[in-house]
């Protein structure tokens, strides 16, 4: 599998001067199968357990490297920054911490690039930044990315991971769901494809807006995708949820994703789909 043998320096080339984080510590116990994994080994396999196939979360830069052709990515709106429209307690601090942790201004990277040779407008979310929550900056960047796809007549690819709406922005956060979905309505009317990639976890306001609206919805194996979090549901129905509930396989079974695509094949799959829809 050549896809994980690419030299590390390619990462830097793919994403400009930004650095990809290497996990701390020497080894860890796999969340999927419990076996002891060397972090180096896990990293080499792009954070998929070589034993059980458990897909660990990726930062948006790691995802960008895996998804977008080397040297083809042009980032947009990278300086778009949050305000604190409600004067919400501790929000300004949380943003600052998120920016230090994720090394980006907010929870999504957007830009134009090529995926397996196919031009696309790309948005990649990052769970490290305040749980990938959907605030004004994420909503605006994604909306602009969709409008850019319309303008440049390319397909749109959004890789989602999010705990949902950003509470600290209150009603402004909620309205990003409408804003992004309206932009996707226009993309559709322009006859341009939207491929939604659902990664672990995608819930709440992001699940209930753009991430569920793909012409094709693709999910990584095991990704948790749902409207309400499992804890909320358990408390509502007062019973334990069945095993595998809200996982990608459950969504496939119930008709809400088109395919489950392992990380190693995602780029190639997206490229094929983009090519088909634009042919």
């Amino acid at each position, binding site marked *: 599998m050549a896809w994980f043998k690419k030299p590390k320096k390619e990462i830097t080339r793919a994403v400009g001067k930004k650095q990809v984080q290497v996990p701390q510590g020497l080894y860890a116990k796999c969340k999927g199968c419990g076996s002891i994994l060397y972090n180096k080994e896990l990293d080499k396999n792009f954070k998929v357990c070589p034993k059980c196939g458990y897909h660990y979360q990726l930062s948006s830069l790691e995802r960008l490297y895996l998804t977008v052709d080397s040297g083809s990515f042009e980032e947009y709106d990278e300086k778009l*920054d949050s*305000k604190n429209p409600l004067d919400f307690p501790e929000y300004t601090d949380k943003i600052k911490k998120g920016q230090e942790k994720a090394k980006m201004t907010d929870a999504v990277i957007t830009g134009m690039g090529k995926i397996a040779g196919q031009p696309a407008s790309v948005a990649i979310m990052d769970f490290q930044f305040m749980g990938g929550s959907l605030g004004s900056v994420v909503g605006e960047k994604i909306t602009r990315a969709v409008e850019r796809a319309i303008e440049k007549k390319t397909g749109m690819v959004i890789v989602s991971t999010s705990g949902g709406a950003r*509470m600290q922005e209150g009603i402004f956060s909620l309205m990003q*769901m409408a*804003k992004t979905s309206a932009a996707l309505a226009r993309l559709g009317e322009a006859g341009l494809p939207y491929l939604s990639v659902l990664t672990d976890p995608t819930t709440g306001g992001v699940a209930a807006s753009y991430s569920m609206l793909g012409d094709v919805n693709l999910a990584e194996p095991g990704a948790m995708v749902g409207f309400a979090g499992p804890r*909320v549901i358990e408390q509502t129905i007062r019973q334990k949820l069945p095993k595998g*509930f*809200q996982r990608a396989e459950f969504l496939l079974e119930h008709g*809400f994703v088109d395919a489950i695509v392992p990380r190693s094949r995602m780029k190639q799959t997206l490229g094929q789909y983009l090519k088909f829809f634009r042919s």
Partner: protein
Amino acid sequence: MRPFPAKGFSQVKAPKPLARSNGKKPKGDDAISAAWKKVQLARHPQRPFALDYIQRIFTDFNEIHGDRVFGDDQAIVAGFAYLGDQPVFVVGQQKGRDTKENIKRNFGMPNPEGYRKALRVMKMGEKFKKPILTFIDTPGAYPGLGAEERGQSEAIARNLLEMAKLKTPIIAAVIGEGGSGGALGIGVANKVLMMENSIYSVISPEGCAAILWNNREMIRQASEVLRLTAQDLRSFEIVDEIIPEPEGGAHLNHDSAAQNLKKAMEKNLKALVGLSPKALEEQRYQKFRSMGMFQD
């Protein structure tokens, strides 16, 4: 019978019913008391619900049922009626006043089939070139097992996308609780109105208090920091108009509250019916497109 939470969608345990919350005067400043008071009024069991307004505002309301896919969700009522001489399509989230009706209405928390029924009826509005009026009053979309199986998130997302495209006037009125995505699922409108004592929020005060202070009892403070009152939302230009309620709240005089909302709906509709289908879509797009606060 399935056990239902006392009060809708929130991030944690089902909140206690209002009556059982201690009657002590809330700590903190007047703003905290004021916001909390609005929350209580918005959830008042005697407040006019969607059907109370529908009966008073329209004539010849005909309810129609079902999403044509799975079933009929009674947390959402839908149908057609006349607003004066104007034929309109109507969609509303419906709460119950007593336990029996609340079970039937699922406490106003729609399942996916409710959103799909709403969309079916709204698309009829477009097909037959009639305006659509929606009544928002929900603690949130239902966070249940079946709701997830049947794609709650897809159902809401689909409504957001489709409502953005509808080539007919849409007016949404928040009449009580505007609970997050569950409210927005019938709320992508050309004009959004809010009753004076209604609320509209991304999360319930209970859920916010649990996340922020790990303490559900801090709901008064949470009600304040969320800026969820009609007055807050008007100041943010998220809603277009606040509809006055009778002295003390809409629950004290349903007729008067409905009269005020009717007048506002008629006025707003008059301004919209002259617009071309394309202009209506564009106005709605730009309205939501401009929402958000960030630094470029």
